[in-house]
């Protein structure tokens, strides 16, 4: 039994929650098991714990209903925002389109705010809904990023403009993990604001299916805040 082998057991045990990690590592020491057997035991428990989590609808919703489609759509919108910025800063394009700097700036701001709101709310809901399977949602979010980064062929733009959504999304995830719920009034302001921006930005030519896929996390936050508020209210 070597120290290095036990380090492997310690690493595997990091996948368990704090109290359980303490208990299991203590049990292994007390039973005097070999590091190899200990590693199998810990991995067995980790697999059982993960399997139990996936009996719920939450990790499925988070990974396949939110992380995967949202990262696809938000990458597309990040690209659109970058192109709007490029047009706004190019006098040649401004002259050609007849846009004034003022209207171009307004459009750009709406796009940036909408991108931030969509990304933040998606990240927040992923953090709240599947905190213990977050790593799976993260993988499903990063897979499309890697795929499109490798195939990005727009010469006038950096490929990293695809990832503009990541910062607000990661911020949303960290807030979701930390605070778990948001006040109803804040949720309503956020959802109404994002919906308003969406209508303003896209107007009549709105791609409703993709926009609905990006706006529902904001309204989900409203629904859960309302539900939690009702449950907490004295009867």
């Amino acid at each position, binding site marked *: 039994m070597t120290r290095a082998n036990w380090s492997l057991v310690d690493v595997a045990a990091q996948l368990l929650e704090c*109290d*359980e990690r*303490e*208990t*299991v*590592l*203590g*049990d*292994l*020491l*007390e*039973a005097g098991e070999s590091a190899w057997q200990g590693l199998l*035991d*810990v991995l*067995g*428990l980790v*697999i*059982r*714990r993960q399997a*139990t989590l996936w009996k719920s609808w939450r990790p499925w919703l988070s990974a396949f209903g939110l992380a995967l489609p949202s990262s696809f759509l938000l990458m597309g919108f990040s690209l659109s925002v970058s192109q709007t910025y490029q047009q706004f800063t190019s006098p040649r394009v401004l002259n050609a389109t007849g846009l004034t700097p003022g209207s171009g700036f307004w459009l750009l701001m709406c796009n940036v705010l909408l991108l931030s709101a969509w990304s933040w709310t998606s990240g927040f809901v992923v953090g709240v809904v599947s905190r213990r399977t977050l790593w799976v949602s993260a993988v499903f979010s990063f897979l499309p990023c890697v795929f499109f980064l490798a195939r990005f062929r727009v010469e006038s733009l950096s490929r990293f403009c695809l990832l503009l959504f990541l910062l607000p999304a990661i911020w949303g995830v960290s807030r979701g993990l930390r605070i778990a719920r948001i006040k109803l009034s804040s949720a309503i302001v956020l959802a109404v604001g994002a919906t308003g921006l969406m209508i303003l930005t896209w107007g009549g030519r709105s791609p409703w299916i993709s926009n609905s896929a990006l706006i529902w996390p904001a309204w989900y936050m409203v629904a859960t805040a309302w539900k939690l508020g009702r449950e907490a209210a004295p009867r």
Partner: protein
Amino acid sequence: MILIMLGEFEYLLITAAAGLGEEAYGAAIREEIEATTGRKCSIGALYTTIDRLETKGLLRTWMGGATPQRGGRAKRMVRVTPKGVRAAKDFYDAVTRVSRGASWVANRTGSAS
């Protein structure tokens, strides 16, 4: 009253925990099960079953003290609740009843061969 039907391993775990009394915790229960059944009991099966039984209200667990032989790590102490005792007794009664007349039960040898 709703009858909670235990599984075989759940029954073993509750019985081992009840037998250990104040000294019932993860490693001790595991050792007891392995000693009495002669079968390997994995930590995964043990703790997921403990969680399930706790959710059903048949066990109560809490973090206990640490000992030097555990490298200063805490134990997860286990106590069988009255509901757990009832469920185990129901299981035992059911097994006893259904086993009456079986060839492997004492004093009834040879009829199945």
